[in-house]
């Protein structure tokens, strides 16, 4: 079976490492977990994973990052990897921004900082289930 990877992107190392730890604790060896501190680095990692034959299935990204912002980054990833699922994590609780993101379908899900472990994991589980049902249909 092809190796599958989950990528976490945030300009704060504590965030990506904390999330990585949560994922590892929850899913253990089921996936490869990668972290990046900005969009450019994330894209480099994605390229490398692709080159290694690893399948990227989920990207968890901060919204507010230096350089390329989260929504732009996710759109870019979606273009190159149409099947990938995305979660946007943001410290901004502005309702109109969340509305806009949902409306524009820039991401599959949005998780607000500070998130709860259960909340994040169930979101990931749901997306993985969607992914499985989609791939089984194909």
């Amino acid at each position, binding site marked *: 079976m092809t190796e599958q990877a989950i990528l976490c992107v945030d300009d704060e190392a504590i965030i990506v490492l904390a*999330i990585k730890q*949560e994922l590892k604790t929850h899913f253990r060896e089921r996936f490869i977990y990668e972290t990046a501190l900005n969009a450019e680095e994330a894209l480099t990692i994605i390229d490398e994973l692709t080159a290694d034959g690893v399948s990227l299935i989920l990207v968890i990204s901060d919204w507010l990052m230096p350089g390329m912002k989260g929504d732009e980054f996710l759109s870019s990833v979606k273009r190159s990897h149409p099947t990938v699922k995305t979660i946007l994590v943001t*410290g*901004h609780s502005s309702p109109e921004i969340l509305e806009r993101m949902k409306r524009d379908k820039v991401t599959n899900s949005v998780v607000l900082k500070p998130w709860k472990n259960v909340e994040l994991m169930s979101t990931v589980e749901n997306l993985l289930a969607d992914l499985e049902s989609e791939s089984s249909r194909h």
Partner: protein
Amino acid sequence: MSRPRFRSGLFGKMLLMVGLSALIPLIAVIAIATVDAYRIVSRESLSYAEEQGRHFADLIGEELTVRLSAVRSMAAMEESYRDIPASVRRTVLSAQVRAILERNPDILAAWSQWEPGAIGDDPATYRGSLLTTSRGAFNVLWYRMGGKLLLGAIGIGDENGDFFTIPKRRMAETLIAPYYYSYEGKVNNRVLETTICVPIIVDGAFKGVAGFDIALASSQRLVSGIKLLQHGYAGMLANNGMRIAHPVPSLIGGVYGEDLPPARQKAILADMAAGKTFVVDKKDLVDGKMSRQFFAPLHVGDTGDPWYLVATVPFSDITTAADRLVLTLVTMGTIAALIVFMAIFFAARSLSRPIRDLMGGAALLASGDLSVRVTPSGPVEIVRLADSFNAMAEKLAALVGQYEVSNQALSERNAELKTAQDSLGILNAELEQKVRDRTFALTEANASLVRSNGSLETALENLRTAQDQVVASEKMAVLGQLMANIAHELNTPLGAIRSSATYLAQTSSGNGPELFSFIASLSAEDLAAFLSLTRLGRENASSFLETDHRRERRALASRFRSAGYADPEMLADEVETIGAFGLEDEIGALISRGRADIIHTAANLAAVSRAEVIILTAADKAARTVSALVDYSRSEEVEKPQLVEPVAEIRTLLVLYYNRIKTGVTVETRFDCMDAVWGHRERLNQVWVNLINNALQAMEYRGKLELETRRVGDRIAISVTDSGPGIPEAIRSSIFKPFFTTKKQGEGTGLGLDICRKIVELHEGTIEFESRPGRTTFTVFLRTAGPITIARDHD
């Protein structure tokens, strides 16, 4: 032939010139001849009339003179009265008078009257008897009546009348003025008569007068037959002006000139009395036409005042003759002119026809027919001209043949030029149109610029007045945004804390007793390895946030997979978590001994340490955020200053906050001045962080960040330089204003540079910048406190 051709054609001109030169003298000759003819004819007519007048006057005068001579012979007979016996003297003398009357049938009466006693007869004796005057003188008169000769006495009381006294006085023959005489007292027998008287003079002594009475009707007969020209006639006037002969009988007896003014009549009568020959022009009494009258005197013997023959000729008669002459002249002249014209016409045509042929040839030649030749004809000069023409056409054809090729090229070139000129004209027109359009658009734009300039000025004015009002509320709005940013800044560490705390809770709740039993189960060798790994994990936990061993981990996983280990990815991740990359062999030994659980457990413990570090770091970050907020809200507060080393602070900041920039940014430091300054460390750090953040954002985290310090007089200059696009000229004066930001929503509050300036000014320093594309430098100048190194207490 139309006028233009007549004018312009050679033939026409020749005809015109020659014809005029012939006709003008001809007309002049005719005119002169006409005038002369009138004059000659008039003169001839008049002299004819005059001559006729004289002629008839002479004839009539002769006839009267014949009568006079009869009277003279009678008087001579009477003079010889002494040869007759005294007793029969009266009877013989009377018989002689009768015999004279008998021999002259044209006379009315013959008579003689004597002085008393002139023939020796005693007046006393004869007084009262027949043939005797009242004075007793002999007086005999025989007259003709009804074909018989009758004897009567003279005068019926008019003895010593003019017929006696005038001849006696003049002692000469006398013609008595005409008079009417009624024979035998019958009024209807009235006869216009005259009397010719001859004095009877014997030995120089007057004895008496003998005379004839003549009816002037004979004069009428004489003149009535006279015809002068067509309508001319003759008449006779007596010496007293009485008309005694005239074609119109009713006019006889009238006095000439009764239709003229009295003065003129009198002058004419005077001329007559003087016996002149003269002419009178006047209207004729008969028909009222202007006429010329010739007065020719009639001389009868020595009878004194002449009578006149008047020849009247109407002018029309004279001019008719002249007209006829002129008509003849004009007719002949016209015929002559026509003959001349015809001669000229044919002569000119014979000359012009070859010339016209030549002209036609020349026209054909001119129109391009070079093969045209003319047939020489006409006068020798024309023939030579035609020959020359043909020769010229020959040469021309040759010449044209030579030039035809180059001419063709020229005309083609010409056409090209024409085309070029046309298109140039079109281009020119288009250009003009464009210039007009552009000028119009410019004018429009200018007008609208002027308008918008006006409204801009107004808007700017409004803006200025509104700005002050807006600033306060804007401050609140920015504060709201600042709060959102702060929420984000707090939510991020809170998220990390919650995540890690959850992890710790899960781990500690599940792993506590298991961990103890696990340790208890370890052999001494394994325990040593476990403790070694656990210690390593705890040591590396402090720096794991700043280093990324992803590549090492991937390489290790690859090797583990090659070695056939289970879950190579997870195993490599655990090695990374522990930070045991250098212990690959030991790890391999553990796995091969079947003690991978030692690695797992050590990794779990390392993860716990990491979670602790994450929580601490996040808590620090949250605390810093809160502290910054407090600092900002208390930025006016002045705390007690301390010695601060900007270079050391900047280095720490780089370590703490900017490890992330290593992917896209090259950092160059050049710290030539290590001096300390008096001030507030945290606040100054806020300045450096702000400047570095601005620099990174300006170049979008790609490029070169230069950090420099140098000594400038008593000040230290701290510079932050980026390789970004530079600050646009338009906003350079605005960048230190509060709330000014060029950053995207969520990236900046717009307070950064405002705060920086405030902090620097609080430290009695200055901040300035210079910017061009590719290089923007912000420099802070602070008063130096000298190169004093103090102990740092910021841990």
